[in-house]
């Protein structure tokens, strides 16, 4: 009898080209995504070695990190950003790689467009020079972020050298309470496990709560696996997955698709397979969440008090904890509800899909934003933007005083024009609240799209359930 294996192990083992004692595995990569920030030095490496791309059909490119989210038809104003996007254009042309450039109907955040176009499929290995590549794991594949030297490896050989991580199962059962979204689930898990609690592991999310989620919600969860240190997280594919994929541009079509589905149905962890670690949570314990500090592990239920140093487990954490609260301008022991905010950012590879935009539109329909707050809604892709306009969401947002922009990473990372000014508070649906992440000295509260929409209306940190009662 063959050994019972986890889904992760099955996919990994099926992609090992060479396993050699004392060496990391040479792991074959089915799909490689690139963008303008982490690829130029990799292409330079190929030039220095005088080699081409191993299989151009397995790499797709888009411009997302540096792009403006207004007036995308005009040249990028900032010279260095423009140069980086132009360099991507030249490299893709020179090496024969398909590019979804600014203005292309498929352009968008790399982790939004892969699934949307059906490039992301179950059972694959997927990499990208971006830590949020873990997003794609929602389709039951092994997807993880890599550095630029590894991007070069993949371009040159379609493989990366990797140590096989340990496996962790996170099981969540039960039904979710009112106002609780996938974002709250993952912020809750990270708060429980800490920003480093899953380092060295690859996660499989399972249980009835996970199974009940849409693909969009599953992507939000897998997206933030890296925020607790995990290389990635995956969810076994099921009917929800196949229904999402059917008819997508680059997914197999017609009978080929149905044949593929039969193979994909086998992508499950065997009964009796062992994980290195199993963690279980009860969905009933999860409430709308928010972060108060400067790493995604510093999260609480929105109705809870901010912890104080007396509640920390280790004395060693004091200095970093206090530095964090000082940066955020918050007091240990105080309530976060009612804290005034200045900006609302609804976007990023975590929460910028149609489902997110529809939830926000439903919540704000017929309401108006608080006067002092600036609200940016940045769709994850050109297709999301088009769809939102087709459904008339742009009109709802406009009436509420929100601005629907064009796709890009935007205010998630303070690299393009969209930055939160120093000292200002932003409630954000993105994935990182690090110091300066949204712009130098900016202060970030991570939360769900519903919580962000609620704060946009009231102008302060709000329990979304209070607005849902009315």
């Amino acid at each position: 009898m063959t050994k019972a294996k986890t889904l992760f192990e099955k996919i990994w083992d099926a992609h090992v080209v060479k396993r050699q004692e004392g060496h990391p595995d040479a792991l074959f990569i089915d799909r490689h995504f690139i963008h303008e920030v982490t690829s130029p030095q990799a292409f330079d490496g190929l030039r220095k070695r005088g080699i081409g791309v191993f299989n151009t059909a397995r790499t797709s490119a888009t411009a997302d990190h540096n792009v403006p989210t207004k007036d995308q038809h005009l040249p990028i104003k900032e010279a260095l950003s423009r140069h980086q996007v132009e360099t991507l254009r030249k490299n893709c042309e020179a090496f024969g790689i398909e590019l979804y450039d600014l203005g292309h109907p498929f352009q968008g955040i790399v982790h939004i467009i892969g699934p949307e176009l059906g490039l992301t499929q179950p059972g694959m290995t997927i990499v990208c020079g971006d830590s949020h590549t873990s997003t794609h794991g929602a389709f039951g594949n092994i997807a993880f972020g890599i550095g630029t030297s590894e991007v070069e490896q993949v371009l040159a050989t379609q493989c990366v050298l990797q140590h096989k991580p340990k496996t962790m199962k996170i099981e969540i059962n039960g039904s979710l309470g009112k106002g609780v979204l996938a974002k709250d689930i993952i912020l809750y898990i990270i708060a429980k496990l800490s920003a480093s609690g899953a380092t060295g592991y690859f996660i499989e999310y399972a249980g009835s709560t996970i199974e009940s989620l849409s693909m969009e919600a599953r992507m939000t969860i897998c997206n933030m696996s890296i925020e607790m240190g995990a290389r990635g997280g995956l969810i076994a594919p099921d009917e929800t997955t196949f229904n999402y994929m059917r008819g997508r541009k680059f997914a197999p079509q017609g009978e080929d698709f149905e044949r593929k589905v039969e193979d994909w149905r086998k992508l499950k962890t065997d009964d009796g397979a062992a994980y290195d670690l199993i963690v279980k949570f009860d969905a009933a314990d999860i409430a709308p969440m928010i972060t108060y500090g400067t790493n995604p592990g510093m999260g609480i239920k929105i109705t809870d008090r901010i912890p104080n140093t007396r509640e920390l487990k280790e004395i060693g954490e004091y200095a970093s904890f206090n530095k964090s609260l000082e940066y955020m301008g918050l007091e240990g022991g105080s309530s976060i509800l009612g804290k005034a905010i200045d900006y609302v950012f609804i976007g990023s590879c975590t929460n910028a899909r149609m489902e997110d935009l529809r939830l926000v539109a439903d919540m704000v329909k017929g309401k108006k934003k608080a006067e002092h707050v600036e609200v940016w809604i940045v769709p994850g892709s050109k297709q999301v933007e088009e769809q939102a306009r087709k459904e008339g969401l742009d009109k709802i947002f406009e009436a509420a005083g929100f601005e629907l922009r064009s796709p890009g990473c935007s205010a998630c990372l303070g690299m393009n024009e969209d930055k939160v000014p120093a000292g200002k508070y932003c409630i954000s649906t993105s994935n990182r609240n690090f110091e300066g992440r949204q712009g130098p000295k900016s202060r970030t509260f991570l939360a769900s799209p519903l919580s962000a929409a609620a704060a946009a209306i009231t102008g302060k940190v709000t329990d979304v359930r209070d607005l849902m009662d009315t």
Partner: protein
Amino acid sequence: MKEKFTTLISTAVPLSIENIDTDQIIPARFLKATTREGFGNNLFRDWRYDAAENPKASFVLNDNRYSGKILVAGKNFGCGSSREHAAWALYDYGFRVIISSFFADIFKNNALNNALLPIQVSDAFLLEIFNKIESDPNTSITIDLENQKVSIGHSSEHFDINAYKKTCLINGYDDIDYLLDLRPEIKKFDLLHK
């Protein structure tokens, strides 16, 4: 071919903060270069300089008492973004070794791919190193990669490193050389996995 690494004896710079993420090591707005060089100027940019671009005296890189090729940092160093620019910035600034009690995964790979050695030590030994260099900034640390040993004064600790990665560092090889040799096998694999 990368720089070869065997033994290093150097003073160290202590940065006793936990969860130092790659956005602090090199903020995103400085990732716009298309080469690997020059990132050292912006290493820890927002901790190192104030809004008017003046060095902040309180930050350890601006403290003349401390210098050297070794950075000693709190646990979970390098968490967050996969940007290899973080490893390039540390290397470009002059660091060759980072000592911490815990490293984020992607950062560790990126560092090893750039001849920057991440050394994981116990919490207790990390505290001892911090105490020794803070009480005497001239204290040197010895890194012996062949014997996988880190020493300070009369104390030392063994550190783990994958045998393959160790060989790469000692000889200045990189992963891509190993993978390029596998190309015929990879080609076959590629054809079978359409």
